Every structure is written in structure tokens, then in C-alpha cells.
């Protein structure tokens, strides 16, 4: 390699650069390890999670609960329970997103993607589409109603 690219030694010591690269690499290792660990915990679905089937289509969301009840554009859930979304699409790609709970996963036709979460506070949250899907993509919105169990 030396012969190919020739002699190009610079006339000063390079230890500050090595120290700097060492610090950068150490930081990146820390970020990577933390991310790996957190994602591993986040992806562990509780066994008693209730399944909600989510279907995205131009330009609304349909939800089907385990007992077969369907909702369009709004979703009613209870605090304290774990829910597992099975997300798919009937036409083009969408992305199912409840930003306040960091729920985000693409709805891809022909595939079922799963993500789980557990609402902690009663209230109203926005559901939106985060993957470009055409004309009304900007308004492909819904509302999540979280209620305390009665």
C-alpha cells in the first residue's frame, strides 16, 4: 500500500487525532450498545397483550378488536392493558403512528407488521399516517381514546 500511494507522511505527530478517533469510537460503541439494549427490551411483547388488527387504506385507518368489533378512524383502549397491533394495508404503503407513545410501524400490503404498547394515561391522542400515500396523506388522521378501566 505504501508503494502504491507513495510516501506522504505528514511532518507532525498524529497522536491527537488517534485520541480523538478513540473518543468518537467509544461514544459510538456506547450509543450502539444502549440502543441495542433498549430496543431488545422494547420489542419484548407481553404474553397477555390484546391483539388489535390495524388496516391502513387511502386514506383512513380501520381497527378490529379481538372480540370482532370494528372502529374506523378512532380507537378506544384502556389504561394498564398491553396491546399488540397487527398492521397491514390494502393498497399502498402507510405508516401507523401514535407519536405520543412512540408507536410507529409501516403498513405494507401483503405483510403483517407487529408492534405493541401499553397506554398509561387516559386521554385523547393523535393517530396519523407517516408514510407518503398520495392525495389525502396529510389528513389520514385518527384519534386514540384511552379510558380508565370501568
Amino acid at each position, binding site marked *: 500500500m505504501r508503494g502504491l*500511494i507513495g510516501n506522504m507522511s505528514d511532518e507532525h505527530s498524529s497522536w491527537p487525532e488517534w485520541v480523538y478517533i478513540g473518543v468518537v469510537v467509544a461514544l459510538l460503541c456506547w450509543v450502539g450498545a444502549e440502543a441495542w439494549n433498549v430496543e431488545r427490551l422494547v420489542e419484548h411483547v407481553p404474553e397477555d397483550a390484546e391483539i388489535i388488527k390495524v388496516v391502513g387504506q387511502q386514506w383512513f385507518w380501520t381497527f378490529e378488536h379481538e372480540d370482532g368489533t370494528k372502529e374506523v378512524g378512532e380507537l378506544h383502549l384502556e389504561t394498564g392493558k398491553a396491546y399488540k397491533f397487527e398492521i397491514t394495508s390494502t*393498497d399502498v404503503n402507510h405508516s401507523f403512528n401514535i407519536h405520543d407513545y412512540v408507536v*410507529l410501524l409501516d403498513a405494507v400490503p401483503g405483510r403483517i407488521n407487529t408492534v405493541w404498547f401499553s397506554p398509561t394515561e387516559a386521554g385523547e391522542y393523535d393517530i396519523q399516517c407517516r408514510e407518503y400515500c398520495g392525495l389525502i396523506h396529510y389528513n389520514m388522521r385518527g384519534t386514540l381514546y384511552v379510558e380508565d378501566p370501568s
Partner: protein
Amino acid sequence: MVLELHKPRPIWQIMFSTHHTDVGLLYLIMSLGFLFLGGALALAIRAELFFPGSQIIADSMTFNRIFTVHGTTLIFLFILPSASAVGNYFVPIMVRYKDMAYPKLNAIAFWMIPPGGALIWLGFADFTWYATPPYSIISAPGPAADMWIFGLKILGVSSILGAINFVVTIMKCKHPDMSLGQVPLLAWSFLSSSLIILVALPTFAAALLMLLTDRLGVSGFFNPALGGDPIAYAHLFWFTFHPEVYVLVIPAIGMMYEIIPRFSRKPIFSHASGLAAFIILAIVGFSSWAHHMYATGMSFTEKTVFMVGTLAAVPASAMHVFNFLATMWGGRIRFSTPMMWAVGGIALFFSAGAGGVVNSAMPLDFVTHDSYWVVGHFHLFVMGTIAFGTIGYVYYMFPYVTGRMYHEVLGKIHFVLAMIGTVMVFFTQHILGLYGMPRRIYDYPPIPEWITMNQIATIGAMLIGISMAIWLGNMIYSSAKGPEANMEDPFGLGGRYYYPHTQKNPHH
């Protein structure tokens, strides 16, 4: 080409010339033209988002077409050709050769761009620069979508021809006394980015053909209704376009490697480390493409692999930043306009890179993905790093191209306004992303935080627009009426430059 205005030539002589400085001039003028066209679309987008509700754009379809053509134009018709402009002017001089290796091929590669650009602009497609199936197959209206596909096809071939030319010029036509390691870093940046193009681009070329036949209904590669898989397209697309990100950014870094030591009046801190960083980036850049796809439902293992691949590319970029700062350290710096742009570009490059580490960390990506964070993040690269480096370099080349000096104070005003504007637009967009605003939306609900952030961003964009208008006026006026430049030392720095105007042009 230089002193053109002293010794005018008929325009067809420049247009049909194959000399590298003439082709470079054509690249330069065309790419700047498209910069202003694409930038105008950006201002329309920002104006529309100033308030919730419909403002200046009548319907969402028009809005979708505008951001699609904005992105396509600035990536393929501004960034790539403007790098080629700089490469054409400087690479042959840096390797001490009379011209590019294949002058006719060089001219052909240039002349493929106007028809490609015309197809994109006359079609005005709406499926984003990513043309994601199944939307692009079953939903996107033709003939705009088909024209976009053909346009990109032509631009891709042009890119490959240009890349072959740079590789051969540097590897085979460099002066025999010069080892590859001694080739200046700007030329090295073109060598590494051209090699990336040659490996990466054919994949997208194949994907484009498959997309076209899918649209025609004769195949179903990406159409789930016919048994295809849209995620396959995502892999093919990002296998090309993640490395392509480095293709875009590496020449801009190369330009900074020319500007920073010159205006610091000091040799580059470490030629070897800059060179190593280019090579590492060109290789490691291929290990990270699917970090764009965490949310498509990838397995934990896949995500981990691509996160590690992504993080591995960071040290190489960090080496460049270190090299720039160490070069400036203790130098007798002159903050002329090109230097201000280069230094501003480095600061924004660092910010963009830091944001990139956040995106690649798996759990955080689900906060930022497909939100305005991502828009802000990559614009810090394309605008903050690449356009800043390029604009600085255009100021630097200006005396050699026109034989005249630009107006220094206006150049500095341009920089200050653009820097403030860039921070206002793209840092703010990061925050908008954290508030959860999705990208590519024509309208948004009246959430107070979203409105405030959008308004700050729009004001910033208008500042950039004003600064660019000042630049355009400065360039046009100074190239005709500016004071004559001292061609031996236009910036009064001492030392020797690379002098494009000394290249013998057979048409002169």
C-alpha cells in the same frame, strides 16, 4: 474559458466544445440554474406551510408534485452536476493532464442532463424522490410518473459515464511522477465518489426498469397484488441511494480540503488521514443502506446489523472535521467569502452527523422516522454541507471562470443571511419532528407548537431566498462589470493555486 468576457466566443463554440473547462462551465451554469428553480419550489413549500390550511397552493396534488420535483431537481440536477463542474475544472489540472480522459464522453455525459431534467420538469411527478411502490405503480398518475422514471434513467447513465471518466482520468492519466497518494484531496474525493457511483448505481437502474414494467402491468416485482414485494424496492433503492449520499457529500468535503488550507495559509494537517477517510467512507458506506427501513418491519437482528454498519461510517466523517479544525489551528486565517462558506459548512456538517447518530440508534429512530426531524437532518447535509461547500467553491472559482472578482461584502452578506436562514429552517425542523409532524404533508392540524415552528422555518427559508437573490445579482453583475482579478493570487493569500485558466483550450 477564463477571460471569456474579454475575448468573447460564440456560444455554440462553448456548447459544442469537449474541452474540460468548457464542459465544466456548462455544468456550472446549468446546475446553478436548477439550484434557483429547485429553490423556488422550496420557497413555495415553506410559504404553504406558514399557516395551517390552504395558503398559496391550490390542492394537495400540486403540493406533492412540488416537493417531488424540488427534491429530484436539487439532488440530480444541482448537486451532482455542480460537483461535476468543479471536477471538470480542477481534476485534470490536479493530476497534470491536458483534459479529461475521454473528452467526447465527457460532453455526452453533460448533454444527457438537459433532456433528463426536461422530462422531470415537464412531467412533474408526485410520488416523492423515492418513488415508493406500490404507490408509484398503482396510484401515481402518468405520464408524469413515467417521464420521471425515464428522466432518472437518463441522469443515471450520465452519472455513470461521468464517473468512468473521472476514474480513468485520475488512475490512468495522472502524471507518471505523481503517486496516487500525492494526488490532491479534491481529486481524491472525485475518485472515491466515482467508484461509489460505479458500484451503487446499477442497482437503482435495475429497480427503475422493474418499476416501469410494473407500471405497464407486464410484471409484478413490487406489486403485492401480483405476488411482488414493495420492500424489495426499498432495498434496491437504498442500496444505491445510501452510498449516493456519500457521492453527494464527498466532493463537497473535497472542495473544503482545497479552501481550508489555502485560506488558513497552512498545509493540510494530514493528507493521509483525509485520504484514508475517503476510502473508508467509500467502503463502509455500503453497509448501512437499510437503516432507512427500520420501520418497514425488519427483525431485531437486521436492525442491529444496519445500526452497526451505520455507526461505523461516523469515525471517517469525524476524521474530516478533525482535519479541518487542525488545519485551521494556528493558521493565519483570512475569512474571505469562500472560507466563510467552508467553515459554516463544517459546523453544519458536524450538526448533521450528530443528528444522524440519533437516527441510527434503533429505538430513537422510531421517534424521528418519516417526521420533519428527518427532513431537517438530511437538509443539514444537502444544504448545510454540500450546498455551502459548493457555493464557497463557486466563489473561489469565480475569478478563474470570469477573470473578474465578485463583490466581497455582498458575498459575506449572502453567507450570513444563508447561515442564519439554514439554522432557522433546519434546526427548527428537527424540533418539529420531535413534536411529531410527519413529512410530506400539505396541511397540518392547528397545534400551536407546530404553527410556531413552521413559521420560524418559513421565515428562515425566505432569508435564504433573499440571500440567494443577492448572490445571483452579485454573480451576474460582477462577471460583466466586476474589477479585474489578479489571476496569480486573486485572494491575496500568497502561495500557488491551481490555475484553470492556464489550461490550453484548442478553441481559444
